[in-house]
């Protein structure tokens, strides 16, 4: 019995277990049984991952319609992403324990499970199915806010996510035509992906992943939806969609040159929007763009060190970004808003949330001793080793920018700054526990001698290169010194600008971004077209009907059995002559035609 269970677990995609837990969570109404399912599901998924029986070979397949679907295949890189997803799913379930909402619990787990299942899928159709499932399930986490704005944002979100899935399917169709199969082993291997120039269909796949990764100009769904999700929903959303896209980019497009610039631009532009954004959850969404940019850039560089950097950064980021969203989720839950203009001084009654937020902020800012430092250093070094000066400068600039919006702005304006006079209760115990676990990972991974850095580096796809970097480069005096110089002087700039009143005060309002194009001019153009059609349509339809009636009448009067051409001997003669001409043409064709 025990062996059979072990065998079953070792061949089961952990994502399926989490999805099943999600379905059960909707049906089970008792609070404690539902808590057992929502936390136990991801933990059982973790057990399944630990027990996986083989690397880089199909562990579960399904044959259907003359095709083989690889439902479970474990690669080294999928372990990094899958493990981070499973940890995030577990922590998120704890964070949401106070929610008495079966639908949200269920959708959060199905969404997480779909992302995990896609991470361990071995063919494009299986990825497509779970890709779309992430879109359909996650939209409920926005919808459940229950506001009109959330409804509209969720529809925009769903539209663009489904578009991503359709493009993925188009890409898959081309790849099927080119390779005759959709199994990954036939067209990609670790570190070797598709070519945008040589593989038709790759461009569709690239854009599909670009939408989910929130490439520049395709990024606004992220700020639009995450800031309007429920206080627990935003935490869940922050972990999966963009990182699933990063995983897919890692598998399909490692070393794709264009990703270097796309990633670098992604790191830089959100910094400017974040500085003037008032809604702190939107600031975190911009920050998410910025962080994913580092990963995308590293994938574009494509060296073992850079690819390790992308995977390590994703692992650390899933946890510390979740922690920051949790801290803002706790503020949202207790205060009802995350707008900087309405917050401040919350440390008085929410000190533990403040401490956890500071740990998340230190991690994302890549302060030595925190997880961001050990993860981001790989990418920065990889760029340096390739002597890409401009890209390196952009990433360094973005590193200072991260400190501005996530390292200082988030904790400072929420918990310190001016006293808003609000005295909310501390976050509930389950929220504090979840934030505590996430904080533990941030420190454990980043602090030397605790074993966390070795654990993370040991998981990385190119383990030997990671271990060499750990021994020779990570904790060197000059590396720690330069990182501290960058951050401390950036912090000094904040203090100086704040003291001389040059730091722009927080102000209520929205910040225009690229979504203005489709929410304003494009939307108004469509509304105008509709109005014009409503007015001109009936008149145009009437004129067209009258014209077609007259043409029909003429044709009928000429060619019908009662028409002009059917009267008298002419029609019979025409029929005979037509037959004669046709016969001549056929005979000529037989004589002079090709033999």
């Amino acid at each position: 019995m025990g062996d059979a269970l072990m065998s079953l677990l070792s061949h089961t995609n952990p994502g399926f277990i989490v999805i099943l837990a999600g379905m059960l969570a909707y049906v089970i109404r008792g609070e404690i049984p539902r808590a057992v399912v929502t936390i136990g599901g991801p933990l059982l998924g973790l057990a399944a991952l630990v027990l996986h029986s083989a690397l880089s070979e199909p562990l579960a397949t399904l044959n259907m319609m003359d095709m083989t679907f690889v439902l479970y295949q474990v690669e080294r890189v999928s372990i990094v992403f899958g493990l981070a997803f499973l940890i995030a799913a577990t922590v998120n379930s704890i964070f949401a324990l106070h929610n008495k909402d079966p639908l949200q619990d269920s959708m959060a787990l199905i969404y997480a499970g779909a992302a995990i299942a896609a991470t361990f899928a071995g063919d494009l159709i299986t990825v497509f199915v779970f890709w779309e499932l992430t879109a359909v399930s996650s939209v409920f986490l926005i919808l459940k806010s229950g506001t009109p704005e959330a409804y509209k944002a969720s529809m925009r979100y769903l539209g663009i996510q489904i578009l991503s899935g359709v493009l993925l399917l188009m890409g898959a169709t081309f790849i099927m035509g080119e390779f005759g199969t959709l199994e990954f082993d036939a067209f990609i291997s670790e570190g070797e992906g598709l070519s945008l120039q040589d593989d038709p269909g790759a461009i569709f796949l690239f854009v599909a992943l670009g939408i989910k990764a929130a490439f520049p100009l395709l990024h606004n769904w992220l700020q639009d939806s995450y800031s309007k999700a429920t206080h627990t929903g935003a935490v869940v959303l922050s972990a999966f969609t963009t990182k699933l896209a990063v995983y897919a980019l890692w598998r399909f497009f490692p070393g794709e040159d264009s990703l270097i610039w796309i990633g670098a631009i992604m790191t830089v532009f959100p910094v400017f929007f974040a500085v003037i954004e008032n809604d702190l959850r939107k600031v975190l969404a911009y920050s998410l763009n910025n962080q994913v940019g580092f990963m995308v850039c590293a994938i574009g560089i494509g060296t073992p060190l850079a690819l390790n950097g992308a995977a390590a950064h994703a692992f650390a980021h899933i946890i510390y970004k979740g922690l920051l969203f949790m801290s803002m989720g706790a503020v949202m839950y207790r205060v009802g808003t995350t707008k900087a203009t309405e917050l401040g001084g919350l440390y008085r009654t929410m000190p533990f949330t403040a401490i956890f937020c500071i740990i998340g902020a230190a991690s994302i800012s890549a302060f030595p001793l925190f997880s961001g430092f050990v993860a981001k250093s790989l990418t920065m070094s990889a760029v340096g080793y390739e002597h890409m000066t401009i890209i390196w400068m952009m990433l360094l600039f973005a590193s200072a920018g991260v400190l501005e919006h996530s390292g200082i702005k988030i904790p400072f304006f929420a918990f310190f700054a001016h006293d808003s006079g609000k005295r909310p209760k501390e976050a509930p115990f389950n929220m504090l526990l979840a934030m505590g676990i996430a904080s533990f990972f941030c420190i454990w991974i980043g602090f030397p001698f605790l074993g966390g850095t070795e654990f993370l580096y040991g998981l990385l796809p190119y383990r030997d290169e990671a271990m060499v970097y750990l021994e020779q480069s990570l904790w060197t005096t000059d590396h720690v010194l330069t990182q501290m110089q960058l951050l401390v002087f950036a912090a000094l700039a904040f203090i100086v600008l704040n003291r001389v009143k040059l730091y722009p005060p927080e102000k209520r309002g929205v910040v225009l971004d690229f979504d203005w194009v489709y929410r304003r001019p494009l939307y108004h153009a469509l509304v105008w077209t509709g109005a014009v059609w409503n007015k001109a349509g009936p008149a145009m339809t009437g004129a067209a009907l009258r014209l077609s009636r007259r043409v029909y009448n003429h044709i009928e009067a000429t060619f019908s059995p009662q028409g002009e051409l059917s009267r008298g001997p002419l029609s019979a003669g025409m029929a005979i002559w037509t037959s004669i001409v046709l016969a001549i043409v056929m005979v000529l064709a037989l004589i002079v035609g090709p033999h």
Partner: protein
Amino acid sequence: MSEITPEEHTQDTRPAKHSGERYFGWTSHPKAGLYTFIFVGVLAAGLALADFFVHRHEYIHLAEFKMFYALFGFAAFGGVVLSGWPLRKLLGRPENYYEPEEETDNG
């Protein structure tokens, strides 16, 4: 719907001296800003000085200059923050810009 209204959480029933002041109360001291400035200033000066004693291995030539990271961090952060003034004028709009018929509130 499990969302709890903010009003249910706006009042802390504990005594006026809040627990958080034990850990962070110093931040509300009138001189806290000055002390923080001095502390960070001294730390920054120490790190800048250390640059003259620690040999750095750089792969980007530009970074070989003394105090490159310090100056870059200060300038980048300052530039980003100062850009906020014109950017807000250029891109800032009233809160109900997209949905004037509805009063927007967070969430």
